[in-house]
Structure formats: C-alpha cells, structure tokens
C-alpha cells in the first residue's frame, strides 16, 4: 500500500470502483496515472494527507500535486475532508479539485467557501468524462505550477 507514496502526483479519493477505474483509465491514456494513489473513503484520504494511520511513514511535506475529491464518501464525507485540508497550515496549499456527480448549487457554493481550487461535475457520457479528466490531469500536473514544497 505504501510503495511509492513518497512521490505521489495525484491522490484520487473515490468510493465507487467503476468511477475510479474509468477515471484512472482516462488518466492512463495520457500517461498521467503513473504516480497515482487511489483511496476509497474520506478517512483514508485524511490519513494519507496528514500521514497518519496506515500512511504514518509518509512525509507530510511532500504532498500530491493535486487531490481529486469526490463529495459523497463513506466514513468521512468529502466536504469534511476539504474542510480539514483547508483548515490546516500544512495541507492548505495542496490544490484540491472536487470531482463529483453532484450539480447541486449548494455543493458548489459550499466547496468554494471552504477554499476548493476547482469544482468539476462529472459528465454522464464517457467521452466527455474521459476528456474532462484528461484535461484536468494535464492542467494540474503539467500546466499548473504546484506550491513550492519544503523538501
């Protein structure tokens, strides 16, 4: 589980295995999924980002380049993950992109209020979904300049 967690580029937080598979597939097509870690609930995501529990040997100071966060998650809700990440000095700079099926206005408003860096609602059509995800990956991994790490 902890192999290669030192240099993670994308943290995918997604409880639905088919959605995760489609997402990873779309990223793989553009060679963007090499350093991807997939966690299945909010608690695991927090463990990863704050280097606790099973990720205790991770270095908090080298965060992923982007976190792709679903909102409806078991154990700890995506909104809660976002709140905790943006409330902590150490994790606040990490770009978080909400990637969710929800198009509800209140989710969008709440996410931005908590400091999300981008909000994307997953298109139903796979082609559009694949295009969105690969554009997203390209942008955050290659175009965007990530925050300077203390490494």
């Amino acid at each position, binding site marked *: 589980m902890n192999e290669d967690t030192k240099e993670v580029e994308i943290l995918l937080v997604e409880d639905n295995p088919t959605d995760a598979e489609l997402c990873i*597939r779309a990223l793989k097509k553009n060679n963007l999924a090499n350093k991807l870690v997939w966690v299945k609930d909010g608690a695991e995501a927090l463990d990863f980002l704050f280097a606790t529990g099973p990720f205790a040997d991770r270095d908090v100071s080298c965060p992923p380049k982007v976190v792709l966060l679903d909102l409806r998650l078991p154990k700890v809700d995506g909104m809660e993950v976002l709140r905790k990440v943006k409330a902590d000095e150490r994790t606040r700079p990490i770009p978080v992109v909400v990637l969710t099926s929800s198009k509800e206005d209140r989710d969008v408003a709440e996410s931005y209020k908590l400091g999300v860096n981008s909000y994307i609602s997953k298109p139903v059509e*796979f082609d559009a979904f694949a295009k969105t995800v690969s554009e997203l990956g390209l942008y955050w991994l290659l175009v965007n300049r990530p925050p300077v790490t203390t490494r």
Partner: protein
Amino acid sequence: MIVGILGLSIALQFIAAVMAFRLIRLTGERWAWGFIAAAIMLMTIRRSISLFHMVVNGNSYKADVIAEVVALVISILMVIGIARIAPVFRSVRQAKEDAQLAEKEVRTLKEKLEARVTERTSQLEAANKELEAFSYSVSHDLRSPLRAIDGFSSILLENYSAKLDDEGKRLLGVVRDNTSHMGQLIDDILQFSRTGRAELASVVVDMDRLVRDVLHELRHLTMGSTLQVEIGHLPAVRGDSAMLRQVFVNLLTNAIKFSRTRDTPRIGIGAEVKERETVYYVKDNGVGFDLQHSDKMFGAFERLNNVNEFEGTGIGLAIVKRIVTRHGGRVWAEGKVNEGATIYFALPNKENDHE
C-alpha cells in the same frame, strides 16, 4: 298611626340603603353607590331622630302627617327603583363575564391553531428536505451507474472492436445512445423539480438584454444556418431573472430546433403591453403543430414530434409553464402543421400593484 308610617319609612329606607350598598359589589362602582347608600342612611337617621322625638316628647311634637306620607312614598319608590336597577347591572355583569369567557376561548383556539400551523409547517419543511435529499441522491447516485454503462461500452468498442462485427458495434451504439438520453432525462427531471421548489426572486428584468444574451449563448445551435432573428420591443418586467432566462432558453432552443429544416428559418420575438399583463411571444416558421394537441404541449415529457426527427426529452415547455405560472402568468400556443408555431406567455404588470 303616624308612628307606624314613620317606622315603615325608616325600615324601607334602611332596606334601600342596604340594597344600594350591595350594588357596590355587583357594579364595582364603589363611590357612586357608596354615596347613595350613605345619603339614604342619613335620611334614615334623620327619620329615626324624628321618631325618637315623637315617642319621647309625645304629643308635644307636632307631626306633619302629609310630609310623613310623602316620605313613606319616597321610601317605597326608592326601594322599588333600587330593586329594579339591580337586574340591569346583573345582566351587564353577566354579559361582561360571557365576553371574557368567549375571549378566553378565542385565545385558546388561536393558540391551538398556531400550534397546528407550526406543526404543519415543520412537517412541510421536513417533506421538502426529504424531497431535496431525494433529488440530491438522484442526481448523484443515478449518474454514476449510467457513466459506468456508457464508459464500459465505450471501452468494449475501443479495445475489442476487432472481435465485434458491425451488428455488435451497432448494438453497443444503441446502448450508449440510450444512456446519454437517460442522462439528459435525469438532468431535466432535476431541473423541473428545482423550478418548482426554488424561491422566486423579484427584480426588474431587462427582457431585451436577456433575450440577446440567450441568443448569444445559443449561437452554437445556429452556426452555419441562415436563420433570421427579429427582435421587437421587449419591455422590462418584474420577476426572477434566472428563471425568466430559462424560459427564453427553452423557447428559443425549440424555435431554432423546429425551424432548422426550413430553407430560411425565421424566428420572431416580441411583446405587447396590455392593461393588466404583458404578453411576450416567440414565433418560428418551423414544422408547427396540430392545434388540437396544444394542451399536451405543456405537460412534462409530452412530445408532439418523433424523437428521431427532433432531439429532446419533452420537458422544455413544461418548465416554461411552471416558471410562468409561478410568476402569476399564463402560457399558450398557436400554430398549424407545417406553418410554424408561436408560444405566448403573459406576465402580470406588477408596477401598478400596491405591494
């Protein structure tokens, strides 16, 4: 005999004084009846002194028989008068008590009613919340499996195309088309339910600008077309800007869609201010419709055209109707098969209202 008359007067006056005194309790008028009772009592004392003189001094006291008889009559009248006034006050007091009782009853009923309203309101709020939670999970949970169906069919087409013959590919295409249609249906249902629940804002909406914005937004639908658009005078109106925008998005999308098979598609947008309402219309020279189906047009998921010919889920006009109705207006349609259609909607002129 005169002693008897005097004694009777004294007795009657005493009774009258007591009765007057008792009226204090009945009427609450302490001073008024107190004074009267005191006055009568003084008269009684005066009579008693006369009686004393008469008895002690005997015949030396010169009695005036007529005056004593008059005094007796006055005493009788006083007793009768006070006796008759008592029931009047008693009924007044009864009425007062009745009114107080009724008021109390009204108050309890009002409290009960208020409690019931509060209860119903919280029930309604709970139902509304439940509905919201329902549509939230619909929007989230129904989309995921659809994306999986579409995604994996697409992967199948991509990775196994060598093993699939043309019919197999066509069948997978059908799966994907229907998935996409269902995705659109889910979006439309959600939007339809949202237009029913969302709170209505009330601002002055510049309809002319709104329509031009919407046309600009829809330009991808008209690219490469020879479409002619004519915009008449569109007066501003009070209403919810986002919702009225949706009205024009839906009406103009329809107009563009149903007229695109024409050589020169034409759309007209205009308005007419009437006494109590302003009637807006969107007119096209498209395929039109049979007027006898016009009542069906505004129902949710009713379609007058074949899906293969014109795409869409049939929710557009239902949303238009819902929005206009929520604004206190009305919608109707005119048209003929192959001769275009005009959709009208009227919004009340609110400026004159004393709101």
